[in-house]
């Protein structure tokens, strides 16, 4: 689970919008390049930023869990594209009937690698934002700079805030039911769904109760009772402007390269 880490670094001090722009830029670059080598460069850029943000350990840990999904993407792409020379087939040709099915081709391998790296590049930027920015600051930047209505921004952060709470409550409920010899047995899917009830009912009840209490405390603290002011104002600094310039150049160069045909690869 990724969460904000209180540290001092260049990345921590950036304006939240700058960080969101970094994420957007990485996404654009990852989507435009198809050459695995260029995608590796994008990933390397994100890693460099993670080192600058002193969160490289968290980023690598996160990417390790994501490697599983990247692998699935790789396998699927490999199997569904059949272009260029075929290296081998998953089902050996010597088998009857199904022999020679699921070929792995040169194009499939390259596309698989590219897609897996693309997934990696896009997800690698999440830890950079989440671990270096307080959720509150992301919301404030959206509200103040991008003029997103506060109610919606608040709804969004509250939903995010609820996830870890609900997870820890579910863990307790699960343990409480286990202590009463609760066990999900057998393979019958209907039984399996029914067996979920002892976890589901308490959590629904607790979630409603928590939401109710949250609403009450919001009212007590004067939510929506007039114009909102904030104690801590977010400002763009010189380093933010510098980042924006670099990001702008990066996007421009990427688009230009793709128009010129650089950074793409043929799958045949």
């Amino acid at each position, binding site marked *: 689970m990724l969460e904000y880490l209180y540290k001092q670094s260049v990345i921590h001090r950036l304006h939240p919008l700058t960080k969101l722009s970094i994420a957007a830029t990485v996404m654009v670059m990852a989507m435009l390049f198809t050459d695995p080598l260029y995608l590796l460069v994008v990933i390397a850029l994100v890693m460099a930023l993670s080192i600058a943000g002193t969160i490289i350990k968290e980023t690598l840990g996160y990417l390790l869990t994501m490697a599983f999904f990247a692998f699935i993407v790789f396998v699927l792409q490999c199997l569904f594209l059949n272009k260029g020379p075929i290296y081998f087939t998953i089902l050996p040709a010597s088998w009857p009937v199904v022999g020679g099915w699921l070929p792995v081709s040169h194009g499939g391998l390259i596309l698989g690698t590219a897609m897996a790296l693309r997934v990696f590049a896009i997800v690698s930027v999440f830890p950079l934002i989440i671990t270096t920015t307080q959720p509150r600051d992301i919301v404030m930047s959206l509200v103040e700079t991008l003029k997103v209505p506060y109610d919606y921004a608040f709804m969004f952060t509250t939903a995010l805030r609820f996830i870890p709470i609900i997870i820890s*409550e579910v863990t*307790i*409920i699960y*343990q*409480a*039911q*286990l*202590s*009463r*010899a*609760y*066990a999900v047995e057998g393979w019958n899917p209907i039984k399996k769904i029914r067996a979920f*009830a*002892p*976890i589901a*009912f*308490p959590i629904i*009840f*607790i979630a409603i*109760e928590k939401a109710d209490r949250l609403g009450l405390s919001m009212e007590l603290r004067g939510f929506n009772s007039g114009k909102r002011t904030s104690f801590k104002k977010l400002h763009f600094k010189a380093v933010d402007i510098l980042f924006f310039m670099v990001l702008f150049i990066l996007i421009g160069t990427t688009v230009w390269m793709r128009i010129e045909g650089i950074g793409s690869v043929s799958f045949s």
Partner: protein
Amino acid sequence: MSTIIEVKSLCHTYSSGLEAIRGIDITIDEGEFVAIIGQNGSGKTTFVKHLNGLLKPTAGQVFIKGMDTAKKRVSELARHVGYVFQNPDHQICCDTVEAEVAFGPRNLHFEKGDIERRVQEALQAVDLLEYRTVNPKKLSKGQRQRIAFASILSMKPSVLIVDEPTTGQDYRDGIAMLELVSRLNQNGHTVLFITHDMQLVAKYAKRVVVFHDGNILLQKNTREVFAEPETLEQTFLSPPAITLLAQRFPSIYRDTILSTAEMLEKTPNLISSLPRENNA
């Protein structure tokens, strides 16, 4: 008396790297009444969660009736070790009190008649028989706590673990809960309870285990533990006020006093020993 719980150099380190338990040894005999005290985060709850297998030791071993908990599933251990959670709302999932109390026995696949008998007995023990067809959500928090308790009792575990049974209850409900636990103890259940209330410890527990920073600080009879207020202080606990008062007069009260009644009993008749004044 035979040993029912045996803990050998138990350690538990959470995946976050937090060392919650750092090598403890405890042996608990059948029929004991043990209080587990210590500050929040001292490892009390982590420890008791090992006894019914919710947590497995990261080092060391835990034996319940000779069974290694690391090799047993929680549902198998549940019939031997009943663990009552703090908040009843974390477990109540049925429409009626009766069904809620039958949840455990049903999971253990007892016969229908047997389940009914167990529910009847458990509800009788917590004095909620008249509410058997009521929806638990309609009852008060104290009553829901008793339902949670009954739903563990119905499995008839030989060891009962109660995690802070008195939080969120008024004094009378808290006492009633401990009276119930104490009756069950007299009927042969081994009882472990976690609490922050030293008066309850003094009144009910025969033995006290004091946790401090993942270690056991003290593990003695209740009277002996309260005789060491300096040691208790290390973990910001202190004996009941009446015990502390008696300790101020060591020449009068040689033994540790645990209740007002005891103090009165040991108090010499001061009035009669005062020198008489002449009113003439």
